[in-house]
């Protein structure tokens, strides 16, 4: 009898409970379940419990939807569950957890990149406007 997607697995591996993103979906259509499993469980292991979902593809109103069973998540946090890096970043952006340092890092790196690209563009435009420099005149005695 196959286990249901809402849970039924066990904490068989070492590492303690960990809240992660479990990839479902199809080719060119990812979809994630937010689940709780052992920290070092292999990727295809059946989760202990499903706590929510996350759709990375934006909908018609340009929204990426995330659902979370807050009550159960808080229960597992009380039992000592950790979050994976991606799950922590996502829930930080959603407002459940504080904002992750990597979010800030990505944001300022993006800003630097945009500024650098704009400077390079301006420099390229300036060189194009000034035109090609004339070749030196050869004066042979």
């Amino acid at each position, binding site marked *: 009898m196959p286990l249901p997607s809402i849970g039924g697995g066990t904490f068989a591996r070492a590492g303690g409970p960990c809240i992660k993103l479990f990839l479902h979906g199809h080719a060119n259509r990812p979809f994630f379940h937010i689940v709780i499993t052992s920290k070092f469980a292999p990727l295809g292991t059946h989760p202990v419990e499903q706590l929510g979902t996350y759709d990375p593809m934006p909908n018609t109103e340009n929204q990426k939807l995330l659902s979370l069973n807050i009550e159960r998540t808080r*229960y597992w946090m009380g039992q000592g569950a950790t979050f994976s890096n991606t799950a922590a970043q996502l829930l930080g952006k959603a407002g459940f957890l504080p904002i992750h340092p990597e979010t800030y890092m990505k944001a300022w790196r993006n800003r630097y990149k945009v500024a650098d690209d704009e400077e390079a563009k301006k420099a390229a435009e300036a060189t194009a406007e000034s035109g090609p420099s004339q070749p030196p005149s050869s004066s042979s005695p």
Partner: protein
Amino acid sequence: MFPIVESSLGRLIILSSKKRIRLQCYIGYQSIRNYKKPIWVPIAPSKMYKNIVETPLPKMELQEVTALQETYKLYSSSLWKFQDGISREHEAQMQKEAIQVSEEVELERIFKMNDAENEKVKKIREESVIKEWEEVEAQILAMRKGLEEEELIRLEETEKVIQSELKRLEKVIKIEDLDEVIDKAMAAEWDYNFAIDKSGKIVQGRYNNSIGLADLSIPKKPNITPIQVAK
């Protein structure tokens, strides 16, 4: 010792054992690895003396990141501790309530909560559906207007074509006038009994005076210049 055959899948090492009378062949397979290779496999010659230079983080960024990480750890640990306390209290309360409240009452409470949630979602959905339909209606009206305009343009163009055709057909022989035209054509006599001289003179027929019976009026004096005879 054993022949090695290279293919797109990998290296095929053909092993054979002659233990029995019949030759038994089987293929040892080395696949192309899509993962990190095991620790006991030796380093490839191309990677042996590779100089891997890691670009360090800028100093400002490193300071900022360490500060952020410390504050994040503080927040997270405080959250966990807070949550631990809440979850213990919640568990104790749930155990207390489970004893007191019967199943039926609990079900009723859950159904009420569900109904309230359904009402809220229904309201939101109805509003969004109305908005969507209004947009669809506006699109349809715009499309209809466009079609009507195209129809008007098409009618104008057809009208022009019709008018040009009517104009062209003004000079055409109509069925009502057919008899008249036939009579006229029959009555028109063409005099072929004439000759043109080398000098260009038209010598008319013997028994006819003029040739102007049809609509074409032939001038009395020819428009052709007389041919000059070479001297």
